[in-house]
């Protein structure tokens, strides 16, 4: 493959038509810029992961319960009375609403349980009593009516009535003299309170030191712009309020804030790390090449390629993942590498024509093989990998085309100047006989073998939580909440879902036996079945009403009333006191939906049931568990039909594992592609393998040494490792080209120039990658070390084993003959 036969004529064509060349370059750039800037960026993690079940998609969707923000107010130093803390919570939420007047980020804040709710709920329950009586309760009812039990209860009632000073107890006993409520309610009320204590209607943690409120954002989970603005407003309001009220501290945490701080951290980390590396790279290049024009010529192809890629993606699909763009930006280091080869070659030869003659083929070959490596990602099911592969491939094509078509016209005929002190030092390093020192070769071979042997030990961490970043403020807020409310247990919400509320309620009902069994095994700790008790499907209500009517036969009614009357008379109580109870037994009951009754206010109802925009009803159950048992419990519960966990990370795990499987396939597809291209290009299986082996060996070395030092692959760094492939194969190709040239012509010039370009490329990439180690975000930091290992492996292989193998092969006459024959053909 001799690409100079294409690019040299293009160069000559434009050389005599400079105006056309400039017009074409500027117009095409403006077109790419115009359309490239129109691209929409997708921050939705769902689209980044392979599509999976409906339930898993729901786990990522906007659900008020999942997306709520926990607000906590507590004493700063001196312990305050709960009433004061409650007052401060009211003031804080009022201030929040005031600040939100124009932005409307807040849908509602559940600050307190309104007394109306309790009264109306009680009314509703009494009006539809049989609907709330589980059929298993009738055994307890029958027991309560036994003469001895009833007598004991009436004695207890008497004591309570005599001591009642407000009338409340009297009313309760009038409705329920046999204490049937114990069988009906159980721990239902505790469940309504979600383990909280109510003080002045406000939610408090059990020790009454922290007031809690639940804020429901008005924006969708995926609206990162609103989430950012809201988080800023919330943080500002918190600070302002704490300054006004130094006696309290305000905490806030929750998914919407977490995602904002995550994104913010990524942005600031990228600014810092990319900033550091750009400054260092510029210092390095200016020091060696002493020309600002050199820097501009180096960067222009990258800018052109980036805009070319963005415009193409805009035309192809209109949008791309922001994360893929971030990852792709690092891959642009490969593009810099090509430009460096071109620029270094020009620096040494001073001729654009010579540049195209010598460099068209290796640069084009490097580009096409790297594009092949990246475009193999298009065969995967993940949009993230698609976007990443597409962006990186197109950016490389764009910048390579610019480098081979436009760039030579900006390179003046100059007198080569490479004898500066700095270049002499580089040459001294490059000319070190790494390939001729047996001890060094043995050492490298050992390193390679150890890497290959240990490569199966590397693990893949599919838990995205480990790539999650939480600010110190969030960690403090979450720790306080867990310490005060969760007894050390992890709380996960599970939801049953259906477009039919009754179906969702029935599915929720079927969760209860599973939860009971998990509780018996000690895997779940005190879950609340309150939702299943309060919200009952129409069918179940009909069954319950039938059971009520079947139980309260006329005979049983009169027996019950007689027992009460007899005991009341003997205690000196007026039997008419219990007329309300008689009324309850005589009522005719119909099923009714508590969800649709309006009795429970929307901001409270959302903790139990939610109906989303697609008319899907979700019925929630809060399940406390030991964090270590999370997977066992979750697997058992989501196996229930129509059930999912409101924990995107759970689904991420399987999706990330799918990406990993995808990725492993992609790696081998790209390896095969690269080998085919190398075969076509070199038309010699040995030479092709010579360029191919360092790439494969470096991939195994990355895995082996990561395994050895206990580093794990994750969603981010495994994607970036395609970059290692790209760079590895490029260095191999350039070294092979240089070695072939030396073997054919006896001149080491091309090899030397390529080595200088590789030297700069490697230094630049090591700088970029090392700078990532300064990142705070675990996802970005994780890229640094794995890529650094990959880079080191690639460079070692290119400078030592590859030349050694080549010269060993040249001792084989048949191979030598095939290499030399190519010279004659060219």
């Amino acid at each position: 493959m001799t690409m100079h036969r294409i690019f040299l004529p293009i160069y000559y064509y434009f050389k005599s038509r400079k105006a056309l060349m400039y017009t074409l370059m500027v117009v095409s750039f403006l077109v790419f810029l115009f359309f490239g800037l129109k691209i929409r960026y997708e921050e939705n993690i769902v689209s980044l992961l392979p599509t999976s079940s409906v339930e898993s998609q729901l786990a990522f969707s906007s659900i008020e319960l999942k997306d709520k923000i926990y607000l906590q107010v507590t004493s700063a130093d001196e312990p305050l009375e709960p009433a004061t803390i409650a007052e401060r919570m009211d003031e804080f939420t009022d201030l929040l609403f005031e600040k939100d007047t124009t932005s409307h980020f807040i849908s509602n804040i559940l600050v307190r349980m309104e007394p109306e709710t309790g009264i109306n709920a009680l009314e509703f329950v009494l009006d539809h009593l049989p609907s709330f009586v589980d059929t298993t309760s009738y055994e307890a009812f029958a027991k309560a009516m036994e003469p001895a039990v009833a007598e004991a209860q009436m004695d207890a009632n008497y004591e309570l009535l005599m001591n009642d000073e407000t009338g409340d107890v009297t009313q309760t006993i009038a409705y329920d003299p046999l204490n049937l409520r114990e069988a009906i309610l159980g721990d239902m009320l505790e469940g309504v309170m979600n383990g909280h204590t109510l003080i002045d209607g406000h939610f408090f943690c059990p020790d009454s030191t922290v007031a809690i409120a639940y804020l429901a954002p008005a924006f969708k989970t995926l609206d990162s712009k609103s989430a950012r603005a809201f988080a800023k407003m919330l943080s500002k309001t918190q600070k302002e309020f704490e300054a006004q009220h130094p006696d309290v501290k305000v905490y806030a945490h929750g998914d919407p804030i977490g995602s904002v701080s995550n994104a913010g951290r990524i942005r600031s980390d990228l600014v810092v790390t990319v900033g550091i590396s750009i400054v260092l790279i510029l210092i390095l290049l200016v020091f060696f090449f002493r020309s600002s024009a050199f820097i501009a010529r180096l960067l222009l192809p990258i800018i052109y390629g980036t805009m070319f890629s963005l415009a193409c993606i805009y035309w192809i699909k209109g949008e791309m993942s922001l994360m893929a763009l971030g990852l792709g930006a690092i891959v642009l280091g490969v593009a810099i590498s090509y430009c460096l080869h071109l620029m270094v070659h020009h620096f040494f030869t001073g001729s654009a024509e010579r540049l195209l003659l010598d460099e068209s083929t290796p640069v084009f070959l490097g580009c096409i093989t790297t594009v092949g490596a990246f475009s193999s990602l298009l065969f995967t099911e993940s949009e993230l990998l698609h976007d990443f592969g597409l962006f990186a491939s197109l950016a490389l094509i764009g910048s390579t085309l610019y480098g081979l078509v436009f760039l030579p016209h900006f390179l003046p005929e100059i007198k080569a100047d490479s004898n500066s002190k700095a270049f002499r030092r580089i040459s001294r390093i490059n000319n070190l006989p790494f390939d001729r020192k047996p001890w060094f070769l043995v050492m490298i071979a050992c390193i390679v073998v150890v890497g290959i042997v240990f490569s199966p030990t590397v693990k893949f961490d599919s838990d995205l939580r480990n790539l999650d970043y939480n600010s110190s403020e969030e960690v403090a807020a979450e720790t306080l909440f867990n310490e005060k409310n969760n007894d050390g247990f992890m709380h996960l919400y599970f939801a049953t879902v259906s477009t039919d509320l009754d179906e969702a309620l029935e599915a929720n009902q079927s969760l209860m036996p599973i939860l009971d069994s998990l509780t018996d095994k000690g895997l779940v700790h005190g879950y609340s079945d309150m939702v299943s008790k309060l919200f009952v499907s129409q069918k179940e209500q009909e069954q319950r009403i039938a059971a009520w009517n079947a139980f309260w036969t006329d005979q049983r009614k009169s027996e019950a009333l007689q027992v009460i009357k007899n005991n009341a008379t003997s205690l000196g109580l007026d039997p008419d006191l219990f007329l309300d109870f008689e009324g309850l037994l005589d009522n005719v009951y119909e099923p009714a939906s508590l969800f649709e009754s309006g009795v429970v206010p929307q901001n409270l109802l959302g903790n139990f049931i939610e109906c989303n925009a697609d008319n899907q009803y979700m019925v929630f159950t809060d399940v406390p568990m030991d964090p270590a048992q999370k997977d066992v419990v979750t697997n058992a519960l989501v196996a229930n039909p129509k059930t999912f966990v409101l924990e995107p990370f759970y689904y991420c795990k399987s999706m990330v594992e799918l990406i990993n499987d995808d990725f492993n396939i992609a790696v081998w597809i790209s390896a095969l592609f690269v080998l085919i291209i190398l075969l076509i290009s070199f038309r010699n299986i040995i030479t092709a393998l010579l360029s191919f082996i360092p790439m494969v060996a470096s991939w195994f070395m990355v895995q082996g040494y990561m395994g050895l030092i206990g580093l794990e692959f994750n969603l981010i760094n495994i994607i970036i490792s395609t970059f290692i492939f790209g760079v590895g194969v490029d260095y191999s190709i350039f070294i092979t080209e240089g070695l072939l040239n030396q073997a054919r012509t006896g001149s080491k010039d091309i090899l030397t120039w390529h080595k200088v370009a590789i030297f700069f490329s490697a230094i630049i990439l090591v700088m970029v990658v090392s700078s990532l180690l300064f990142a705070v975000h675990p996802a970005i930091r994780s890229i640094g070390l794995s890529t650094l290992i990959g880079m080191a492996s690639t460079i070692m292989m290119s400078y030592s084993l590859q030349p050694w193998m080549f010269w060993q092969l040249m001792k084989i006459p048949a191979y030598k003959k095939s290499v030399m024959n190519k010279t004659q053909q060219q």
Partner: protein
Amino acid sequence: MKRIVLITILLLSYIAAFSQHTYDIDFTQTKVMKVSGKTTEKAGHLVFDGNDHLSMNYTEPKGEYFIIEGNLVKINLDGKKAELEADKVKLVQLQRSTLLNCLAGNYEQAAIENHADKSISYEGNFQTVTLTVNGKVPRGGYSSVVLTYRISDGMLTRMVLEESVGAINTYELK
């Protein structure tokens, strides 16, 4: 002479019925538990604007109150503190309305709203209106209300609110 007395009574009743009743007065409250006979005495000051603003601030026990501000009902009684929007709770709506109507002299309206029978008797300068709820008493509602108005000015002087179970509360306005 009889005719003059009758006309005077009718005239006073008319004035009493159509004049606006505003109160700024001390009161006592006696609460008797129907079952145990336990009695609690309370006292305080009542202010009523004749429309929908009523405050009953207790001096004994100090700090307790029952306040109606339009639709809002604020309660701090017997250790229970709450602010309720009357239109959201049927029971509170009925209690609020009954109390305001009774103070304003609109006992007819109170009778209608409570589904109660009304009986009126006269003694000297006082008119006693007894409202007795027909049939089933609404949950937490009053089974009977006895109101004593001063005929000369139509002002309420005594009010007895009897719950179906629980307590009988007697308010004396002095």
